[in-house]
C-alpha cells in the first residue's frame, strides 16, 4: 500500500492545526502538565486515598483527546480521525473501568527496571518529547503537550502502565501500541521525526508490561 495516499495534509497545515488547537485550549496545558508531574509524585509517594486518581487523569485525557482533538477538530482535515476518536474514547473507557471502577491501576514504585522505565517515559512525555519536537522545527505555538495532543499522551500512558502496582490487563496496552505506530508513521510521512520515539516506547514498554508479575 502507498502510505502517502493516507495522509491528506501537509506538515505546514498539521503544525498550524496543532498551534490553533493549543491556542484554543490554553491554559489547560498548565493543568495537564501539573497532573503529569503529579503522576511521578504519586508513584514515588503512593497514597491509598488517591489510588484511583492517576487512572482517572489518564482516562480523562484519552477521552478528551478522542472527543476534542480527533472528533471535533482533526476530523475536518482527515476522515480517518473518526477512527482515532473511537479508539481514544474506547481506551479512556477501559481505563475508567479497570482503574477507577475496579481500582486495579494504583501506582507503586518498586525500583524495578519496569518502574524506572515508566518514570523515564513520563519525563519524556512531559519534557523530552516537546523539546525534541521544538528542536526538529515544530515551533513553540505547535509544541506537543501531554494530555492535550495524542503523541505525548500515548508516551505518558506507557509510563503509567509500567508503574502500576499490579500488572495491567493486556487489553490496556493494545490501543497505545497501535496508536504509537500510527502516530509515528504519520509523523514520519509528513516530516515530524520526533514521533519516532513513540514506537520505540511502545516496543521498549511492552516487554516489561508482559514480563511483570501479576
Amino acid at each position, binding site marked *: 500500500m502507498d502510505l502517502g495516499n493516507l495522509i*491528506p*495534509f501537509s506538515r*505546514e497545515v498539521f503544525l498550524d492545526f496543532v498551534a490553533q488547537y493549543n491556542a484554543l485550549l490554553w491554559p489547560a496545558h498548565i493543568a495537564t502538565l501539573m497532573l503529569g508531574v503529579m503522576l511521578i509524585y504519586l508513584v514515588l509517594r503512593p497514597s491509598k486515598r488517591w489510588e484511583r486518581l492517576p487512572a482517572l487523569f489518564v482516562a480523562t485525557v484519552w477521552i478528551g483527546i478522542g472527543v476534542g482533538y480527533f472528533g471535533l477538530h482533526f476530523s475536518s482535515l482527515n*476522515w480517518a480521525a473518526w477512527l482515532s476518536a473511537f479508539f481514544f474514547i474506547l481506551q479512556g473507557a477501559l481505563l475508567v473501568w479497570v482503574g477507577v471502577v475496579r481500582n486495579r491501576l494504583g501506582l507503586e514504585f518498586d525500583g524495578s527496571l519496569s518502574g524506572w522505565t515508566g518514570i523515564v517515559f513520563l519525563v519524556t512525555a512531559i519534557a523530552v518529547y516537546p523539546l525534541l519536537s521544538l528542536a526538529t522545527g515544530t515551533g513553540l505555538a505547535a509544541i506537543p503537550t501531554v494530555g492535550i495532543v495524542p503523541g505525548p499522551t500515548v508516551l505518558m500512558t506507557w509510563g503509567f502502565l509500567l508503574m502500576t502496582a499490579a500488572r495491567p490487563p493486556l487489553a490496556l496496552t493494545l490501543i497505545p501500541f497501535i496508536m504509537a505506530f500510527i502516530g509515528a508513521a504519520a509523523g514520519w510521512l509528513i516530516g515530524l521525526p520526533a514521533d519516532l520515539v513513540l514506537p520505540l516506547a511502545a516496543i521498549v514498554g511492552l516487554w516489561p508490561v508482559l514480563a511483570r508479575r501479576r
Partner: protein
Amino acid sequence: MRSLPIDILDRRGFLTSAAACCAVAATPSLAATPAIAKRPIPSTGEVVPIVGMGSWITMNVGDDPTLRAARLKVVQAFFDEGGGMIDSSPMYGSSEEVIGHSLAKIPNTKQLFAATKVWTLSQWMGVRQMNNSFDLWRVKRFDLMQIHNLVDWEAHLETLLEWKQEGRVRYIGVTTSHGRRHDDLAEIMKTRPIDFVQFTYNMIDREAEDVLLPLAKERGIAVIINRPFQRGGLFDEFKNKPLPNWASAIDCQSWAQFFLKFVISHPAVTCAIPATTRVDHLRENMAAGRSKLPDSDMRARMLRYIDAL
C-alpha cells in the same frame, strides 16, 4: 525533431475544431496572451481547458484564515489564467469546503468545471456524501461526479445515472491512480456508459499507455490525468538535472512544463490536474497549456532524455 503549435496538433484528427483548442479565456488581462488549449469531451463535444487543478493535500487547510487566504489566491490565479476544471473529493479533508469558500469570493468563475467524487460504501451513504459536496462547493450542479477509486462503484453508478437524467450532474466518471485496479477500470470503460475516467500518467508512471489511454480513445471517454508530477516526486528526482537545450523548441521554461507538456500532449488526454499551493507554480503550469506541445517524435525524445538521466 518537430514540434507543433497546439492548434495544429490535430494531425491525428484528435481535436475536432479550431474553436475547440483556441477559445480565448474570458479574462481581459489575458486578451493579449494566447488562450489556453481546450480539448473536447468526446461524449458531447463540449471543450475544457487542457490544464485543470487538483486539490489533494494542497487545498486541505482547515479553517485557518491565513492559509485559506493563500489558497484563495491560487484559485483566483487559476481562473485568471483561463482554468476550468477543479478536481476534489470528500477524501481530501477540508478541500471541498476550502474550494467552496474560494469560489464564493471569486468573481470570474464562469469557466468553472466542478469535478468531485463519491468515496464511500453503500448507495445510501453515497447519496448523503454527494449531497454534502453540493453544500461544501456551494454549487447547484456538478459538471462531473466521479466514483473515487472504484469504491462501491456499481451502487454509485446507479445513483449517478439517475442524477444525470435529472440534471444534478452533467457527466459521470470513475477514477483510480497508478497501477490500481486498471483491469477493473478497463472493464467498466468497455461496458458502462461513463463520460470520464481519471488515472495517473506521468513521465515515470506510464502503465496507462498500455491499455487505459488507447481504450479511452477507442471508446470515446474523456481522460483526466492525476499526479502528472508523480505527487512532486518528479521534481525531487530531476530538479538538480539540466533541462535539455532543445526544451525551448516546445516552449518549456522549466521542468514543470516539460513534465506537464508530455502528459497533455498525449492524444487521448483531455485534461491534466496538477495540484499546487503556489501562485507562481500555478501560472507556470497553466502556461504549459498555452504554448507549443510536443508531437509524437518529440515525446519520444523527451522520454529518452529522462531515461538517460
